[in-house]
């Protein structure tokens, strides 16, 4: 009895999600970006086969940027949050304004079935979206380069897949939180977008300003100062889920990346050798990955608690 409520909500919301126009638009947008970036980076590989290592060629499609376009992964850093926000921002308050809240909650289900069902169905929608985009890239790659991902690549892709879901899941639960806190859907939509804007653009500028202020870069600058400057900047940027996500997936998709800090030319020469194993890569980005999960869970828990205590009537 207890689970049936969650299931009923889950399946209905899943159908709603896939039927919604905003999802369709965003899905097309992200797929197109996937297709373009894959196409361009595979063209680059075909053009200069000598310059690219043949190892982990498939993963390179996701992370390599060309002159004209940033990498697919950095695009995802921008757009994955939107995927979370469109499902989250009106999850609860639209039920109030539509007048369906008391209709649903007067059925024999626990109150949390509604919010859990909605969260899980949106997470599933996000997962299906990412999976189908990865499959699109698979297919395209097979045509253009004629290669298929190998075993270790597949496990790295799987981790990338999970990380992307959690990154979008953070914005999903943030959207749900605002949909619980604000009664108007326009307010919750704008607030969610403002947070996204802050983390995606504003924090970057802020990090620059603070770094310039605390560690000014003058004419006769030492390498040490530049290093410090970059460290300050990076530290502030890590408040952004986008940075956490970007660092995590870049390490996971690039087995040769061994450190997250700034790398100087002399040092990087020595760092070329053998690629890391997946667990070694994961060890590097473990803090980032765990932070993302924690952020998502905290947002969802707060919305859960507030929702459970909320008056059912909106006035």
């Amino acid at each position, binding site marked *: *009895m207890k689970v*049936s*409520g969650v*299931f*009923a*909500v889950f*399946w*209905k919301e899943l159908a*709603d999600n896939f*039927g919604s126009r905003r999802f369709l638009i965003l899905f097309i947008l992200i797929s197109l970006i996937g297709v373009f970036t894959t196409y361009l980076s595979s063209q680059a590989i075909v053009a200069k086969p000598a310059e690219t290592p043949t190892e982990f060629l498939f993963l390179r499609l996701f992370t390599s940027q060309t002159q004209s376009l940033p990498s697919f992964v950095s695009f995802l850093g921008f757009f994955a949050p939107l995927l979370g926000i469109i499902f989250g921002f009106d999850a609860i308050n639209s039920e109030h304004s*539509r*007048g*369906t809240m*008391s*209709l*649903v*909650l*007067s*059925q*024999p*289900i*626990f109150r949390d079935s509604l919010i859990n069902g909605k969260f899980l169905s949106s997470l599933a929608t996000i997962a299906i979206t990412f999976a189908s985009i990865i499959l699109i890239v698979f297919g395209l790659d097979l045509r253009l380069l004629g290669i298929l991902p190998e075993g270790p690549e597949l496990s790295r892709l799987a981790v990338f897949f999970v990380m992307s879901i959690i990154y979008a899941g953070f914005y999903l639960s943030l959207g749900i939180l605002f949909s619980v806190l604000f009664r108007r859907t326009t307010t919750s939509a704008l607030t969610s977008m403002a947070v996204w804007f802050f983390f995606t653009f504003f924090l970057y500028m802020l990090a620059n300003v603070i770094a310039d202020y605390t560690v000014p870069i003058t004419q006769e600058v030492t390498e040490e100062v530049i290093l410090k400057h970059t460290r300050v900047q990076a530290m502030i940027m890590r408040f952004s889920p986008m940075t956490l996500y970007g660092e995590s997936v870049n390490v996971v998709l690039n087995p040769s990346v061994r450190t997250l800090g700034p790398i100087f030319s002399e040092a990087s020469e020595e760092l070329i050798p053998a690629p890391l194993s997946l667990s070694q890569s994961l060890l590097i980005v473990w803090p980032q990955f765990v932070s993302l999960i924690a952020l998502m869970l905290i947002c969802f828990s707060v919305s859960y608690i507030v929702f459970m205590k909320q*008056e*059912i*009537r909106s006035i």
Partner: protein
Amino acid sequence: MEWVVETRELSKFYNGVKAVEKLNLRIREGEIYGLLGPNGAGKTTTILMLLGLTEPTSGRALVYGYNSTTEPLKVKRITGYLPENVGFYEDLTARETLRYIARLNGIPDKESSSKIDEVLKSVGLSEVSEREVGKFSRGMTQRLGIATVLIKHPKFVILDEPTTGIDPEGASHILDLIVKMSREQNITVLLSSHLLHQVQRICDRVGIVSEGHLVGEGSIEQLGREIAGKEQTFLEVQVEELMPNIANSIRKIEGVKEVRSSGNLLSIRCDRDVRRQVSKVIVDSGTLPLQIRSRDYTLEEIYIRYFQRG
């Protein structure tokens, strides 16, 4: 005897502001009970507490003996509820809406599909079962609401202002549906409303709430008699011919409060039985009383009296 609904000193305060206070309500099996009161009287708050959707500040609400606050699922399994200003998912059809409600009640699709046809037919929505609910009129929406209540096979049904915003014909249709449902399936009904005539038409018993208190309870006749006994009564007298001074002479009778005349009909408000004196005055003035009838209170009058007192 076991009551379908029993509240004990049920109270709800919103941040110290009273919505319901020490309400004692009892509803018998099979009856249609009307909860009557002006806006803000606390009707919806009471209903939400009965369903366990709002926690009482103090007191208890029991439905079929289940405590609504601690066992809400048991209450909600046997209780159908049509909220005031109910809304539906605009993109779903009537049939899909009912299927969703059935699923939420743990009824598998195989069982629900024939039941859905049956319920749609009984509320008169068979023809539009495949139409999206967003395109429904207010009356159709409300009938769909009743269908969502029926689909779960309830023993007890709560309807919160089921006829607001509906034209008289539609309202009448809905009231008929409620009576039919109650009589045919022996469902106990709690109906909240401030539309007196509708309540008067279908309710077996009425509870009048004002500012969170139950100020009067009983059948319409009982309520009327209670007021009549304590206060006033009405006489309607039909005379053969309305003589010009009749009204003034009647006014002089002891106990008569007010006399109004229209055509050959006199309406008299008085605080005791004055039929004998009135007939005498009429005969004395040279005409004949054709009919003297003491009129019952209408619910409207009862209602207004209760609020004047309260």
